[in-house]
């Protein structure tokens, strides 16, 4: 009888060890919008944008400065159906000829506004990862102004689910 109790105790110990689920699935995170910059004249060739400042509209913070990058990855809003960004090319601070005084400094650069419209869809991944957001029916546009540096654009895929490939090409 003692032997049996020992065996059963071991059994219960063995089954109480439970595997913890850790989110290790690839592409479980909500994807960023990936934009690649190409030459307007030679549309097969990547062309970096110099000193690009990225600022989300309705966001007090900037997303960052990419000095010379031919692609960017930026987050889209998951609780709204649209996201807008200011993409400022050749961003610089002009010290107004008074390097010691920052109060009269002003920013220079060519600012273009991009707008994305989409439909959000929650996609179940797993217990550990939960859900991710997928952007469907993606529509990309940029606002016309007097001196656009963005000359044209192409939407490569209207479904943003992974970050493996660029979703939008911008020509400049």
């Amino acid at each position: 009888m003692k032997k049996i109790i020992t065996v059963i105790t071991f059994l219960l110990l063995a089954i109480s060890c439970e595997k913890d689920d850790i989110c290790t699935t690839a592409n479980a995170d909500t994807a960023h919008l990936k934009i690649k910059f190409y030459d307007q004249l030679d549309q097969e060739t990547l062309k970096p944008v110099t000193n690009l400042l990225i600022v989300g509209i309705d966001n007090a913070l900037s997303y960052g400065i990419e000095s010379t990058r031919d692609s960017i990855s930026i987050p889209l809003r998951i609780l709204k159906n649209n996201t807008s960004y200011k993409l400022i090319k050749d961003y610089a601070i002009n010290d107004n000829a008074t390097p010691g005084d920052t109060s009269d400094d002003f920013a220079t650069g060519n600012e273009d506004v991009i707008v994305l419209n989409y439909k959000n869809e929650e996609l179940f991944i797993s217990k550990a990862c939960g859900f991710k957001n997928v952007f469907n029916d993606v529509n990309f546009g940029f606002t016309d102004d007097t001196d656009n540096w963005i000359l044209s654009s192409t939407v490569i895929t209207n479904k943003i689910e992974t970050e493996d490939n660029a979703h939008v090409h911008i020509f400049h």
Partner: protein
Amino acid sequence: MRTYIFFISLLLSFAGFAQEVAIKDSTKTHKFGLRIGTDISKLVKTAVIEDYTAFEINADYKFAKKYSLAGEFGNEKRTIDETQVNFTTKGSYFKVGVDYNAYENWLDMENAIFVGLRYGLSSYKNTLNSHTIFNSDTYWNENGLITTPIKYSNSTTHFVELIIGIKAKIFNNLYLGINAQLKNYVANKNPDNFTNLYVPGFGKTTDDSKWGVGFGYTISYFIPFYKK
């Protein structure tokens, strides 16, 4: 996986051991009848654990010297809070199969060291109470916590179960039992855009395995029908 190998090896040694204690005695009388009971561990967990309610009736009918027809029927409701999802599973299950009693009783006692096989069917509903959309970029300050509950359509899971345990007479016709269960699901219908993460009567499921484990402490009453 290593846990399961350990489990199975224990099971085998258990079966071997059970053979050892068997005493050959073919002349003794056997009582045949129905043993009916409940799982005490489910009652205790219902009382102790918040967000858990369960009740199970189990029965076995001895139809041959060493074999019983056995089954369990129960209800379970459980809420599980994971990092990304908080959900409630509620439903019923039944299990039916045969137990083989490896223990040779003295006189006309009905103790059992048994190994059994079951077919199980669980029918239940999942409700997602809240969930977080996995969005690690915090630039837009949208943490993605959604607190609107989502109710999913009915789920069903079919499974097979290997059960081993003992049932010991404490007095008169009252028996106390302990058992361990190893389960594997054979068919599982997930709702759209969700996965059955907990199955009543089966237990938790994991992303990469079809195995489930469980245990029970039973109290049951034996109603003798006839002696032979």
